[in-house]
């Protein structure tokens, strides 16, 4: 029966010859859906990065807004005839396309910054816990367990309720809501890797602890972390959007996609769908692209599925 399972897959000898990175690239490229996700992600990120140059107008420069152009449906021309509102305008005559591009920038920025911070904190704590063990490990994991048993939205809402709003506050809330995922992932990877012989060898060679931790242990813990981080960026962006939608997240001066959607909510009933729908589509594409990439990364980096 083992034959039956092994058969349709590549022989291990063949896979070993290939360089690891090339193999990963090849395995990633095997899924057309995943390639589409990657392309989509690149487009969205570039759009967010170059929003000021791509956007037809600066949606937050009141000089460029014309109240008379308010709530125009998609495709309408502006009052002065200088531009066409491809995705319509909101109640202040703001071009939705421009607002979305700027909103994307904020959403991506907040999500990435929060994820990187949570990753750094969680990784450091998890690595230390896995490597040193003992009471520090026990207490840290107990805290992580308790926190992980509560959904991140609840943790974030509690913090925002206590500290108030603001872009710094929401980053703190996102980091606090997510560090435990990284700490736990790093710890379990570090536990597995730490038992392997190369770490023992490094210890016997008398290498310093930081060197063992960061040069030897950490690189080998990275694959699962990359997967978790990829999934968590999407979660962070969705969480920020949700909190902003609820009015708990970013202030009105920093309109992320969530806030744009909230602004359009009231107009849904009168059929002015575009104010809410298009920012939502942008948010969906962003999260979908990240999830597609993360999904394939998980399969590619999962040693158990590697031969499939």
């Amino acid at each position, binding site marked *: *029966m083992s*034959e*039956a399972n092994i*058969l*349709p897959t590549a022989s291990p000898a063949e896979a070993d010859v290939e360089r690891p990175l090339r193999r990963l690239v090849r395995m990633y490229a095997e899924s057309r859906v995943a390639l589409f996700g990657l392309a989509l992600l690149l487009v969205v990120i570039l759009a967010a990065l170059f929003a000021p140059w791509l956007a037809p107008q600066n949606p937050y420069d009141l000089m460029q807004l014309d109240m008379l152009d308010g709530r125009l449906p998609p495709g309408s021309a502006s009052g002065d005839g200088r531009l066409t509102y491809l995705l319509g305008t909101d109640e202040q005559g703001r071009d939705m396309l421009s607002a979305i591009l700027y909103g994307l920038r904020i959403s991506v920025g907040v999500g990435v910054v929060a994820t990187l911070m949570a990753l750094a904190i969680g990784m450091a704590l998890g690595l230390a816990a896995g490597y040193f063990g003992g009471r520090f490990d026990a207490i840290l994991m107990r805290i992580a367990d308790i926190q992980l048993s509560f959904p991140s939205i609840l943790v974030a809402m509690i913090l925002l309720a206590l500290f108030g709003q603001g872009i710094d506050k929401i980053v703190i809330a996102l980091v606090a809501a997510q560090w435990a995922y990284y700490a736990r992932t790093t710890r379990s990877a570090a536990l597995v890797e730490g038992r392997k012989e190369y770490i023992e060898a490094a210890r016997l060679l008398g290498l310093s602890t930081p060197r063992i931790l960061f040069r030897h242990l950490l690189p080998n813990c990275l694959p699962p972390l990359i997967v978790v981080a990829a999934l968590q960026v999407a979660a962070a962006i969705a969480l920020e959007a949700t909190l902003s939608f609820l009015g708990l997240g970013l202030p009105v001066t920093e309109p992320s996609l969530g806030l744009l959607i909230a602004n359009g909510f009231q107009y849904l009933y009168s059929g002015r769908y575009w104010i809410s729908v298009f920012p939502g589509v942008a948010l969906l594409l962003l999260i979908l692209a990240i999830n597609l990439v993360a999904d394939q990364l998980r399969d590619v980096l999962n040693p158990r599925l590697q031969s499939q």
Partner: protein
Amino acid sequence: MNAPREPTLVVDRLTTRFASRSGAVTAVDEVSFSVAPGEVLGLVGESGSGKSLTGFSILGLVDPPGEIAAGSIRLKGRELRGLSAREWRALRGDRIAMIFQDPMMTLNPVLRIDTQMIETVRAHRHVGRDAARELARDALARVGIPSPDERLRAYPHQLSGGMRQRVAIAIALLNAPDLIIADEPTTALDVTIQAQILFEMQTLCRESGTALIWITHDLAVVAGLADRVCVMYAGRIVEQGSTAQVLETPAHPYTRGLLDSTPAANAQPDEGGQPQPLRQIPGMAPSLKEIPAGCAFRPRCTHASELCEQVPPAVELAPGHVARCFHPLPATQGVKP
């Protein structure tokens, strides 16, 4: 040896293939053998030789993209190829039973032993739960499980490995099958339990006239158990004959190599009183994707010639002793017991 009777199972040029992106892979290639009632056939080969898949083919359990591409499987004269899914299902567990390698994995961990036994009976016979439970208890008792009533209520993880394999054997025996296919059922067990189970299986099959195919990589197991032996390499049967013929006068260089690398078969001292050194067959068994044309053993064989680039025909060297080799070893080269 039994008097010649109608064989329980006749496998004729069975071929099982797997479709893959890089073309079809032949995992079982024109395999032919037969087993008589009460007879034990040892099917020997390294992992990847196609021996397990031969077993699954006989059971009609080849998962896509694999399929039986050619040949015939006849059970008591009835052709099994081309049976409907329903007919196959009626056959499995009833007329043909299978025992797997790892007893830790074959029993469902979340179902009690009685559930797993009763469902086997009731899948094939219209009997009540109580009658089925009765049969299950008898079967457990037959394979030497003490206090079977208690064991029936147990979950698999509460039993030892040897005990679980006995349960699996009892399940195979439940419906008094004509044929049992045992896929390395003792490999995962302790040596002492291995021997016990081997002996019990042999006795049970002899008594009930059940044909037994014992799949293994271990020639030593076959030596004490089987009446006949088939040696498989890269999907083909390279040699078959009675156990004595194959083990004492191996004709195929591969069989010879296997014997030389088996500690038990090798333990006899040579004339000088020294144990013979263990020898390994040079090279590695080929992956099924890159089986060499002609004789698959050719690259590893010291006797290979240009002739071996053709597929060797089956040559009958002695009555019932067949080898697929252009350069069969002379009988004198065998290991003398």
